[in-house]
């Protein structure tokens, strides 16, 4: 069935609809050439329409091991070609089967490069995926829908759970789940941490009552300023325990410290993003997925120092507290998808917790 994507500025991109499902949301693009399943199941994309710039999608099928959360939270997907006959030893389902099963609206056979160029030039916009003959008033209504502000609540868990380890002296981490990616938890768990994952709205005192060795602030979707109640809890955690934040966790930490965040024109989403360590001058290739950034100027009079910046646009990619064992990065050291060059950041967290 012929379908289209309509952006708020009126531009239209044609393609084929995978199913009859319509979708609306903020349209963003990711330039990674592999990792489509990890991207679809990354809760940080909640309620967004994701475009993948690599035109051949589904080449190696799908498998449960690649899931980064319990389900896909995206509103929709825009791609070039859907691979019908994938090849890889891990395959459980084809990509088409996966889309059907997860009820992901998808527009394919799209000139995703044209769309990417549009977003790059005009900035992130809302868009609607619908059948070619959809009435304009329906599209207008969908475009008028506001960007949801409750996305963290949508992706977070409702009840805490614990990943146990076979060691009574294991470092104990409480992870606040704003939409945590599975591989972050796996990475810490593989390093020997016992982890209790708690819902996003867990009060600080409850966390401290668990007496963790360290607190982890996870990645997640949306504008960090949409969750002031979480920010105020994080404020209470500062200075109590070692804290490590990733992505949204990094932004929330900055806001809790009194810094500011702002929305990027079209964000950083891909597996090839270079960041520079300001101390050593070394450059690291990172996996990123963020639409907001911490305002560098707002850090000036705070006890925070910038540790990493983006090589592409100079924006803040990491920071550290000058007095407490607190640090955070904007990018994704857990990879999945993306380069595994930054796993050392988890080691640093362990060190902060007093583990050698």
């Amino acid at each position, binding site marked *: 069935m012929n379908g289209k994507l309509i952006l708020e500025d009126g531009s239209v991109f044609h393609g084929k609809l995978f199913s009859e499902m319509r979708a609306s949301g903020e349209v963003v693009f990711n*330039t990674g050439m592999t990792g489509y399943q990890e991207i679809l199941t990354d809760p940080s994309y909640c309620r967004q329409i994701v475009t993948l710039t690599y035109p051949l999608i589904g080449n190696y099928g799908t498998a449960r091991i690649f899931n980064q959360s319990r389900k896909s939270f995206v509103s929709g997907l825009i791609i070039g070609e859907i691979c019908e006959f994938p*090849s*890889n030893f891990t395959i459980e389902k084809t990509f088409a089967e996966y889309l059907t099963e997860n009820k992901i609206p998808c527009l394919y056979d799209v000139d995703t490069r044209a769309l990417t160029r549009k977003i790059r030039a005009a900035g992130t916009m809302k868009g609607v995926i619908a059948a070619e003959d959809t009435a304009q008033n329906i599209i207008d209504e969908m475009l008028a829908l506001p960007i949801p502000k409750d996305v963290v609540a949508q992706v977070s868990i409702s009840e805490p759970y614990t990943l146990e380890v076979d060691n009574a002296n294991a470092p104990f981490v409480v992870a606040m789940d704003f939409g945590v990616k599975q591989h972050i938890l796996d990475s810490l768990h593989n390093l020997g941490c016992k982890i209790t994952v708690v819902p996003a709205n867990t009060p600080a005192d409850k966390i401290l009552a668990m007496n963790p060795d360290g607190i982890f602030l996870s990645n997640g979707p949306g504008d960090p300023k949409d969750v002031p109640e979480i920010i105020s809890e994080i404020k209470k955690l500062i200075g109590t325990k070692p804290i490590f934040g990733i992505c949204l966790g990094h932004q929330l930490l900055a806001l809790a410290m009194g810094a500011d965040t702002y929305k990027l024109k079209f964000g950083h989403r891909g597996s090839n993003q270079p960041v520079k360590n300001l101390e050593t001058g070394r450059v690291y290739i990172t996996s990123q997925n963020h639409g907001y950034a911490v305002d560098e100027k707002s850090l000036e009079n705070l006890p925070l120092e910038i540790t990493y910046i983006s090589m592409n646009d100079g924006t803040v990619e990491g920071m550290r507290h000058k007095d407490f064992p607190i640090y955070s990065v904007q990018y994704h050291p857990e990879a999945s998808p993306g380069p595994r060059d930054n796993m050392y950041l988890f080691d640093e967290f362990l060190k902060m917790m007093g583990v050698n």
Partner: protein
Amino acid sequence: MPKKSNLKKVMVIGSGPIVIGQAAEFDYAGSQACRALKEEGLEVVLVNSNPATIMTDVNIADRVYIEPLTVDFLTAIIEKERPDGLLATLGGQAGLNLAVKLAEAGVLEKNNVELLGTPLSAIKKAEDREMFKETMQAIGEPIPESTIVEDVHAAVAFANEIGYPLIVRPAYTLGGTGGGIAENEEELVEIVIRGLKYSMIGQVLIERSVAGWKEIEFEVMRDGNDNCITVCDMENVDAVGVHTGDSIVVAPSQSLSDSDYQLLRSASLKMIRALGIEGGCNVQFALDVNSQNYYVIEVNPRVSRSSALASKATGYPIAKVSSKIAIGYTLDEITNAVTHKTKACFEPVVDYVVVKFPRWPFDKFVYADKTLGTQMKATGEVMSIDRSFEGAILKAVRSLEIGVNRLYMEQFKDWDDAKVLRRLKLVNDERLFVIAEVLRRGLATVDEIFDITKINPWFIEKIKNIADFENKLKTVELTAEVLREAKFIGLADKSIAEITGKPMKEIRKMRIENNILPRFKMVDTCAGEFDAFTPYYYSTYRAEEDEVEVSNKRKIIVLGSGPIRIGQGVEFDYCSVHSVWALREMGIEAIIINNNPETVSTDFDISDRLYFEPLTTEDVLNIIDKEKPEGVIVQFGGQTAINLAASLAEAGVKIFGTSVDDIDRAEDRERFDEVLAEVNIPRPRGISVTNLEAAINGAAEIGYPVMVRPSYVLGGRAMEIVYNEEELRDYMSRAVKVTPDHPVLVDRYMQGTEVEVDAICDDVDVVIPGIMEHVERAGVHSGDSIAVYPPQTLSARVIYTISDYTKRLALALHVKGLLNIQYVVVEGKVYVIEVNPRSSRTVPFLSKVTNIKMVNVATRVALGHSLKEMGYYSGLVEPKPYTAVKAPVFSFAKMQDVDISLGPEMKSTGEVMGIDYHYARALYKAIIGAGMNIPKNGCVLFTVADKDKDEMKQLAKAFSELGFKLVATEGTAKALQSIGIDAEVVGKVHQRSVDIIQRIKDGKIHMVVNTHAPGKHILRDGFKIRRATVEHGIPCLTSLDTAWEVLRMLTSMRDRRLVYSLAIQDYVGGGDELA
């Protein structure tokens, strides 16, 4: 300013002549390196023996030495130039090996030359198998169980322990020379013996074979601050077992999950760090199809063929960035030339699929073993880009210029199903085509094909998409919607015409009427994330938006020359690039179309716009429709471009330069005869025939021997001298398809001196920059002859006649630009052999030695400027006081079953130049540079055909007088006895007692003079002897003319300095004239 402030002058070593395994990619890499260094204000000294390259142009380096790439010559140049640094990782394996030798000989240390880029220790760690193994083991990277042996016994012992199959690879070679896969002990012994011979250090590696696994490559960069990135990963369509240079390759990898990809990416970075490489590096992996088990196959600690491919595939300039790293920059300090804003420290991403397809020389070497294995056989490659694999593979196939336009070959129509299935089992150049045919006929499932070929099902499924659609196309009516689908798949108009039985023009018309047009997209390293400034485009039918912003300036398209093949090498890329430069100098926008990733012309900052596309009428017209240029220049892209002239002109495109009609007058036999009659110039008698009977009658009338060949060819393809009717019949049935559309030419074969001329004509004046005399008499293809500038033996009268004929021919053909004429001089009389109204193989050579920018001038002439206004006058330009010798270079070591004897069919893959004020030394340099190891004393074997026995006598006598020991086969020895020369008699191959082959193997024969007995039967003794010389690296002279010249050189060089080097700038500037 380089970061290393001590550097003022840097020497760059090129890779020498084009051979299989080392082609134009190093001209691209070296030119980019020189430009990157000059940009930093460094003085650049370049050494390369290959005159056909751009890098040996005086505008590329401050001091250009076209000298043999030997330790002796490089030492002399280093002592003279005193560079501060040496950059050797951009000159292929040849350059790298030389740097290692220079370092080990203490030359670098003695002269205070710093080895830039990857340090010697890292080179050794990557290249020496034992050290590599230790390094990999230390960091826990798996490599297949292996051992290094220096003799056969140890090899067998290892095999008994590990089992078969085993891969054998010689240490320190290029292109995998001498390696192979052994399935049993007999094969093992054979391959090990050969491998030991080829290894520069007498070692071979034997390892567990992982044949059938996925072959994955990574291009990795590291700087001195330990920043590492991967530029690109590539997946070989052919599984491990076929040399990567002979594999069809896609970028990025298609069948790897993110987890697979990151696993190998992490391993690559770990390895480049452990090895300590600074610059570019290539890593090859074998990945199991059924798990994440992998092995590291090899690391190249330098810029490679794959780097060139990765650069062109992504837009990331690996050679340039490697050069900047070598002079001290770190990746985060180097600007990304594509975005101008971001830095070189990032990983390119692409939003398209790239396919590389090898170009093999089997059309030339019809008797060669076409089986593909660990020894590379391709001479060149094409690359294509599209938004789908189907589109990219189909573009690649039609870029090959092998007479196919899709995955279908003419001969399939004669094959029954059983034959198709039998052929599926062969690993050769036709395999992908056969797979498509199997799928088209439904003879096997994808899984069955995978079981046989080990080609990943992902690729087979894609080929099936194409095959299924072709089948559908046969049965449905060609509506606009079906046509749209066909273009979406990627089929060419010609293919659609072929399948539907409609004329191609109708398809094009229908496409245009229905607005089914390609869109052009940019290659930008970042998948559109940033604004990019690369004027580098590809077409696709899978897009809505076209990104090309067409300008209103004057603009002209230059057609490139496609893949490197025998007969059409890097020379034509040189010409295309110079034409582009000339246009840009004139303020005209220059647009280039080419599909060869190894070349300078496909570097995105050479032209104003680069279209990476097949060179077919359809693809070129699409670009013309888009760009609307003033016209097209076809005379610099070899036969590839010339062949498009007529169809483009017919479509209403203006062809700058010589008109299509005049091109046809030069190329069409009968029309050319009319031209000759008009200007009263003789040619060897000949006829054009369209059937066998006419050929036989004609040959009888002309008289044997005759030269036979198809019309419209380059490089003497399928050209032979036949001596009788039987051979003629054989030729007509085997080598050519003769039809009224494709006549065969039968010419009298005249033995005489062959002379070649390149000239520039503006339809008023004819400038002849120089004349080249061939050492070998007519009958040896001009591309395989040693050519000498200026002529050494021609009389003033002959030279006058040649100049006169050249002028008359150029004017009669109304040439506007370059033309090349070949003459044969017999007893003082000059005959025309052929005229090519285009640039030729010798243009770069002649441009360099005469210091006349021939292509630049010709481009201006083609655009309507006169020679007079540029200061040129009709006639032969005064010859220079020095001599330049161009010698052919062959890749016989890579092509078993190919006869090395020279004939009218071209066999060389590359060339070198020797230049000197002294002729004998120029010749010496050319011969040394060509890699011929001419002995100064020792034993020469003579075994010549009866027709040559008389002529051979004096030659052998002279060798004997120089102190060489002579051995000869019985007949030849008898002939020598008749003039009182004693030569030891050795038995022929089948006479078991004293076998020639055994003597060659034992190293008791140091040179062979062997002429070819008539007939093409390769099982003759001569063939075996000639092959034995190749396998054992001793010179074999198959023309008495070459032998005479070698003798003169040996005589003359007895009392001369062997090593004497001057830069081209010195020669052309007339300075330092001290021979």
